[in-house]
């Protein structure tokens, strides 16, 4: 996929009101593949942590018998991190305000994941 293609996938997510940024992260090594982030968000560090968290969570979920992760959502008092693993080994990541429409972000993350798969 081209950089423009990645950009279009990220656009799906960042156009949702309350989303502060979106990234495509390589699940294997936690490196940023493409991003559209508001100023001040440390993309590479967030990508590394998201990759590591996805890996740990994925192993736990498989062991628990609930299968592979389709979507996960880290809730904080001041915002949220939402992630959808794509079939291509890329994590589609969104950083959002606390009042964001989580259902809508989830749908757009899933669409973006399909686009980059």
């Amino acid at each position: 996929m081209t950089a423009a293609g990645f950009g279009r996938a990220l656009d799906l997510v960042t156009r949702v009101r309350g989303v502060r940024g979106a990234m495509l992260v390589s699940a294997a090594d936690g490196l940023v593949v493409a991003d559209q982030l508001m100023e001040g968000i440390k993309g590479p560090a967030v990508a590394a942590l998201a990759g590591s968290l996805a890996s740990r969570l994925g192993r736990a979920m498989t062991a628990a018998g609930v299968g592979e992760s389709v979507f996960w959502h880290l809730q904080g008092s001041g915002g949220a991190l939402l992630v959808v693993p794509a079939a291509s080994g890329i994590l589609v990541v969104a950083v959002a305000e606390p009042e964001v429409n989580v259902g809508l972000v989830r749908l757009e993350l899933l669409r973006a994941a399909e686009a980059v798969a």
Partner: protein
Amino acid sequence: MADDVKALSAQLAQDPASLVFLRLGELLRQRGQLDAAHRVALGGLERHPHLADAHDLYARVLADKRDYERAFDEWDMALRIAPAHVGALKGLAFLYFKVGDVAQAVSHLEAAQRAAPDDPGIIQAVAMVRGGQASAAASGLGIERAPEPAARGAAPLEEARVFAGLEGAQEGLLLLDASGRVLGGALRDPSGRDVSEPVAAYLAGVSQEAARSAKLLGLGTWTGLSAEGRQGHVHLAQPTSEALLLVVRDRSVPMGRLAIIAQRAAQAAQRWLEQQG
């Protein structure tokens, strides 16, 4: 052997940047001088942070000290630096086997075997892991396996009934400490097998990583982590700073309801932890 330690220590003192710390650390580890081995390994790692062998040595020391979570991270790091590192593959195989994930253990051993086809220890370990013989497998991998603690803290405290009265108390609610040890509740997979311990082990460290992610993103204190799987949903909460709660349900339970169940269970867990004092 004491002379070897002295000689290697002297070499290291003369040239602190040399790789002799790898031999010295391993020698100390084999002698059971784990604190000294830990210092040597850590010192070497500080000077050579991109050396896979340094991470492997440190992981071995951590595994001997039963700090399996950090050992996992170090072996994982060694593999990121050198994807075919035999020591790291063997180490991870050992840890996977330890938490009951035989498939992953075998997969890592097979990768190790591809990298070192003539290593008899690996061939032996594959056979032993498939046969479920932990101590023999660990021996084949060259990883000393110390005796299990007499009173194993990982056993679920069923008598304490931390989640008494709550839905799914013995099959879908799990309370664990920061080290990945089960404190209460239980978890069963769809086939009815108790998977409490492996799941707890995998989740060790998640709360710290969630906290770091939340801090980095300015998300404030993390309040929950929910995840949707292909066959079920999970929700993680933090009843106290030292504990993590996992709630698992099948996909018929909506994520929102799962969060409410988790909230109630977290309150019960918090009360129970306070009583334990």
